[in-house]
């Protein structure tokens, strides 16, 4: 399972970076979304994957006696997903607006603020 997740995370990061390097504004946002998903999965993986051991202390015991699934990464991923969702929807609205005002999707043409002295 870990190997599969590692491969998926790698692919998401690679795909995200590739899309970021394209010239189209739309593809840039796709790239950022892919990268964000890669990061979320990475947090999940870094919390160690444990199957079938809920973090609940059994009856009559005071401490955990065997290995248990860490619940914290899931909370972190959930927070990160919600935040990422908000930021990405803002970014999508922004590119829609930019596309309407500037009438281009090509990032290389968005250079007037850099060129003026």
């Amino acid at each position: 399972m870990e190997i599969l997740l590692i491969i998926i995370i790698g692919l998401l990061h690679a795909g995200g970076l590739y899309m970021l390097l394209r010239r189209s504004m739309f593809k840039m946002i796709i790239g950022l979304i892919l990268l964000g998903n890669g990061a979320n999965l990475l947090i999940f993986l870094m919390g160690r994957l444990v199957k079938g051991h809920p973090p609940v202390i059994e009856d009559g015991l005071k401490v955990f006696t065997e290995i248990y699934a860490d619940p914290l990464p899931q909370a972190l991923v959930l927070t990160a997903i919600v935040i990422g969702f908000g930021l990405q929807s803002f970014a999508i609205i922004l590119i829609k607006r930019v596309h309407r005002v500037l009438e281009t999707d090509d990032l290389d043409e968005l250079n007037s603020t850099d060129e003026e002295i």
Partner: protein
Amino acid sequence: MNNSLIVLPIVIQFLAGTVLLFFWLKTNTQKVLSGLFSAIALVISIWLFMLVWNQGIQVTQSGNWKAPFGISFVADVFGATMVLISSIAGFAVSIFSAGSMRKERLEFGYFPILHFLIMGLQGAFLTGDIFNLYVWFEVVIISSFVMMTLGGKRKQLEGAIKYVSLNLLASTLFLVGIAFIYGLTGSLNMADIAIKINDIQNRGVINVTAGLFLVAFGIKSAVFPMYFWLPASYHTPPAAVSAIFGGLLTKLGVYAIIRSFTLIFGGDEFMGIIMSAIAALTILSGGLGAMMHQNMGKIFGYLIICHIGFMMVGLGIFTELALMGTVFYLIHDIVVKTNLFMVSGVILKINGTQDIKELGGLYKNYPMLSLLMAIPLFSLVGIPPLSGFWAKIFWIQAGLETKEYILIGFIVLGSFLTLWVIAKMWGEVFWKPGEGLPKKANGIYFDQLSGADKWQWIFPVVFLSIISLYIGFAAENIIVLSQKIAGDLMNPTGYIESVLGIKLLMP
């Protein structure tokens, strides 16, 4: 010391933002309320600072979960100082916005967003949890996105695309860094991480994690290879927005770098070399960029980069003396940069342009105002005894002690470039004879404002100039303060003990 009142600076800004939402279209009420709330926030942060200064580090654990498990809020001297300085800047910008922002922008919720942005800053300065720091960073950037695009001018949108995309990338990298930290140490509490990271044998992974943090915070604080979004976007929004961005947002990145590279990744030699290289190149590229531009907003944008480089020097040398310089400069820089962008806003209001070739004759027409504007400009250069000067002594002294002669050379070069840029600007804008710029028929210029309106433009500049003068002339107080902060940063035992509530065994 447990004290749950230390979250008050965050709560008051949250309250301000929420209350202002109810006065959506009543912009005049918003102006009054925003100023009032900012004044209360200033008083609270002065109280917090005095409390921390007199009684030591204050900690609160949210939900009463014991330290490494719950989210800790920590007010140490460094955090409390940053809260105080950002409240000062926030107060000034709130008053300045009341005068300078147009009604169209205010009607789209400018003031609530301003308070939410400052709330994010205060939260970031007070949190003791690395994931919570990420959340506050997101609060700050989403607010800054809105502030940057508010108004929807062509130039603004173009700048915003660069700003938004690079900041989103930085956040993602920060998240990846947090994932590594959590995987390595199993903790998110910064004090807890600081202890546990020493036991890890695999230094290679730690260096990679440190690199991720450096890139993430480096993008936010605009250091050398990652600064290109700043000059492309910071001059596009109105002056009040640029003031809060230029004064506080990049400094949040610097704060995060200082915090994580003293507490968590402290004193690594490899990172020291990288920091020194970044510092030198940032100073050089910022200074040269400032030399070639003619738009005041762009010049100040590049000067921000140049002076971020100064602050990185302290982390490159990494002795107590050098960090003292960095902390002193951080305090000075927030006040001065906020002030400078407001000055550029006033100049724009007087003449309708920010191009220094077109401007001229300001000294002849507005002698008192020019004298006032001279204070932040010359503080920035660091003409003794003004505030930019003192930090450089510490850096140069620290550099001589550790034989970092190249870095000293870059500090001198950076100061010289700043001097050259400001001297050129002073000559062009204030001394050069220049009359009668063409005025747009529908524009309202500074002369046409009523007395009270004029004061809304001038008062924040006066207020921050007085603070700048205080930092310069009462430097001994600020030096004592930054010495205490630098001592705490170099030896974080006190911080760790207070947060975790344990006694560390000294090796």
